[in-house]
């Protein structure tokens, strides 16, 4: 096997043995990217030359391993543009906390950033100003979104592992479409400092990896209290790789009936049922549960998330950074014209749509009917989970109602696109940890993902279930033919 096809765990062993150097890993990745990325488009701004020389890296448990970073996580000296024209050329003068943490453990921040839906607005990575990312399993299909670039890079061995972000499913859904592991930590587990905000009360940063062990490894490094983030929780750190060991006999997992309804693709349903059967063999006890407010989740999400987004994106106005479209300074209202023109040209269609929707939801006269009401229904959704978690340790669902869909299939129908998030959204609304692991393929050869949700801060439990399942199956060893 080539180096780029290995996992971080495997590479760390080789690095320790001394049989390879960090430069060899970079070289292998570079070759792979040069060979196939023109088809996949997992990375952006590829005109930048990936040098082979490795900068000074610290000693640490990830020493020498490159990490691919999504374009909405601030990296000092590396452009961070959220794949949007409005942030063209923006180079942050600081590192996100997760980046600092990776660097302090000797990881290498890969010099190319991964593709994404502009500002994370999307479920297909078709909203990027750098063009869509194509699914390595079938180039006519989407990779999912918004962390599509990260998921594709990992699936196609263009990256060893990657960071993505998840606001409504943006790590899990592309992970399931690409047949890799995607992890959404509990809200507050990983610092958001340096994550360019979409929806502040929903956003998290998380790992996208080839297997569950690498996921636990990466989670170890990025987790932890950060005094720069007021929503970061101070809880004792765990070694998530240690937590993988041990069996899962007697673990109670709930199957919410609202997720197994019409609209769920038949093949997806079958793969999930097979996965459930595997887990039963491993001693897991299943029971049917109910999350009665599931059907309202998408509506709640699209009010709260867009409302917060409309405010978070107000800062992109051409004053301090990014694109500026100048009105002639002699004009009256030159400033307002500058704002309006800059934002008109800088934002893509989906971004504009969400900003308008979000502004509407907060506007005078609509706030109570939309925003406030959505926050109240959010409470009901949280309560649903709390009820179920009284009886169960975890909840299992399909990650997405379908496998990957074709490029452009949903792009003209925003509502249709929003509905593809239905299974992932609730975890963000309730702040819960969740993982997507590959659990098979459709007849067309497209990956299917299984989602496991856990109680707040119970990452260990869901990782253990996922790990046990993975080790008894062969899905994680499959690779697309490229």
């Amino acid at each position, binding site marked *: 096997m080539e180096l780029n096809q290995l996992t971080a765990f495997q590479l760390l062993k080789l690095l320790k043995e001394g049989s390879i150097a960090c430069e060899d890993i970079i070289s292998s990745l570079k070759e792979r990217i040069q060979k196939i990325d023109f088809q996949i488009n997992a990375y952006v701004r590829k005109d930048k030359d990936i040098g082979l020389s490795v900068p000074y890296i610290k000693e640490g448990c990830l020493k020498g391993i490159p990490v691919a970073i999504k374009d909405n996580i601030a990296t000092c000296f590396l452009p961070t543009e959220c794949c949007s024209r409005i942030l063209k050329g923006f180079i942050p003068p600081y590192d996100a906390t997760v980046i600092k943490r990776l660097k302090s453990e000797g990881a290498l921040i890969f010099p190319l950033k991964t593709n994404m839906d502009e500002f994370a607005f999307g479920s297909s990575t078709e909203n990027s100003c750098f063009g869509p990312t194509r699914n390595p399993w079938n180039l006519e299909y989407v990779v999912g979104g918004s962390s599509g670039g990260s998921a594709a890079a990992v699936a196609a061995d263009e990256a060893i592992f990657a960071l993505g972000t998840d606001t409504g499913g943006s790590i899990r859904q592309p992970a399931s479409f690409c047949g890799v592991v995607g992890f959404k930590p509990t809200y507050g587990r990983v610092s958001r*400092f340096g994550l360019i905000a979409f929806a502040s009360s929903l956003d998290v940063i998380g790992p996208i990896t080839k297997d569950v062990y690498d996921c636990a490894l990466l989670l170890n490094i990025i987790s932890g209290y950060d005094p720069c983030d007021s929503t970061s929780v101070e809880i004792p750190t765990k070694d998530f790789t240690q937590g993988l060991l041990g069996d899962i006999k007697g673990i109670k997992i709930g199957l919410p009936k609202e997720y197994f309804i019409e609209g769920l693709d038949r093949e997806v349903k079958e793969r999930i049922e097979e996965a459930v059967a595997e887990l039963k063999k491993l001693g897991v006890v299943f029971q049917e549960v109910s999350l009665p407010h599931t059907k309202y989740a998408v509506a709640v999400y699209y009010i709260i998330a867009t409302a917060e987004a409309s*405010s978070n994106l107000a800062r992109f106005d051409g004053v*301090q950074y990014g694109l500026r479209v100048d009105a002639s300074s002699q004009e009256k209202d030159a400033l307002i014209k500058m704002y309006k023109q800059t934002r008109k040209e800088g934002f893509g269609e989906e971004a504009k749509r969400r900003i308008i929707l979000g502004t509407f939801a907060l506007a005078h006269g609509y706030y109570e009917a939309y925003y406030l009401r959505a926050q109240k229904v959010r409470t009901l959704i949280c309560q649903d989970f709390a009820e179920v978690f009284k009886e169960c340790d975890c909840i299992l669902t399909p990650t997405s109602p379908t496998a990957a869909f074709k490029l452009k299939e949903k792009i003209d129908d925003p509502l249709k696109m929003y509905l593809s998030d239905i299974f992932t959204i609730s975890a963000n609304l309730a702040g819960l940890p969740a993982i997507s692991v590959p659990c098979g393929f459709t007849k067309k050869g497209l990956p299917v993902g299984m989602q496991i949700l856990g109680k707040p801060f119970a990452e260990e439990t869901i990782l253990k279930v996922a790990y046990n399942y993975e080790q008894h199956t062969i899905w994680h060893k499959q690779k697309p033919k490229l």
Partner: protein
Amino acid sequence: MEYEVVIGLEVHVQLKIKTKAFCGCSTEFGKPANTQVCPVCLGFPGSLPVLNKKALELAIKVGLALNCQIQKEIRFDRKNYFYPDLPKNYQISQYALPIALGGFLEIDLDENCKKNIGIRRLHLEEDAGKLIHTEKYSLVDFNRSGVALLEIVSEPQISSPHEAYNYLVNLKELLQYLEVSDCDMEKGSLRCDANISLKKKEDLKLGTKIELKNMNSFKAIKDALVYEIERQSSVLKKAKTLIQETRLWDAKQQKTFSMRTKEEAQDYRYFPEPDLVPFVLSEEEIQKIKQEIPELPQNKKQRFIKEYGLSYSEAKFIVSNKDLANYFEDCFSLYPQAKTVYNWIVGSLMAELNERKKEISRIELLPEEFTRLINQVEEKKLTQLKAKEILKKMLDTGESFSKIAQEESVEQISDEVMLNQIVQQVVKENPKSVEDYKAGKNNALMFLVGQVMRKTQKKANPQIVQGLLKEILDK
């Protein structure tokens, strides 16, 4: 007055703390533009706020001092609007759950009359940056962006420009006593907007509310209100209606002008700030902060009048500065003659301090030393003149009264026999002055007294000298 005046004041105060509200940038005044900034107060993408503990404590302190109800749960909200001095195009402020509600400030109307002006609410927010307008473009400096501001909103219970002025004086005094702000309008650490409406006495409903901005001093606020009352009454008298609007005070022209740009009411789309968690205060924590509140100016004034027998204006003056009031009390405890101490402080000491441009808080002259000086003069062992000289020396050198007095051997000469000799000498040496005196020019007498003082290094008792001179000259 045909119309009743209804005024409310909205005061913004910059908190005197080392760092900004949500980041660790320094709040030092007067630094080069854009050098006290960081990703947080610049609103760079990905940055997050963390509240300054001291800002919260000071805000609670002010709320308690203004007799407000400190809220059990406090939350921040985003106030969304676009402006270049607002880096995120939203301001972190408080809307639904502010720090304090429902208090009052006691203000002095005049010597015998006080009034309580209700405080509607008090909340924390972040300041915006500064804009400088040149001919071709506008420049933005974000040093001030993110500085912690306390917004204090009064009830519309102020009934005249005079009351408004006093409200500000009393509020400033209170805030300075609490050491929460410099309250310097010139430096911008205190800003004030006013709301004013007029109504007929018999009307229950309030009139059209007009907002006034751009007043840079307490006097300007008073003047602007006076102007507005005039303007609004004349409009109403003509049976015309007033437009609800914001008007700017033009200090040069002494007029208010309508702010044309505000055509529509701003929709701030307030919603809870998701990047900050709520704050819940325990009764214990609130009490702890309450303990730190010193005796406040209104109470101190009353006490000074009662305990020290000072007049209203004397008490008002000395209480207006907390350090001055403390110094007064320290001196009184050593020399319990209130009026004497008052006069010495306000007369001689303040003059010396003003000349040296020194604050009383920075004074190194101990009350023990000062009162020793006062004592000597009151016991007539030292002339006023000489005392003033010694005071100057004490302030200049920091040395004790006894040391300097010794150096000057300042015992006042009261010995008439000795003085008579010198008086005789002076009379002999100054025949012209003697003639002038006899001709009715009283100045000549003072001149001769001065000559005697010169010869005695100012130690002679001037009353005695005058008496002796008159005796000789009137013969």
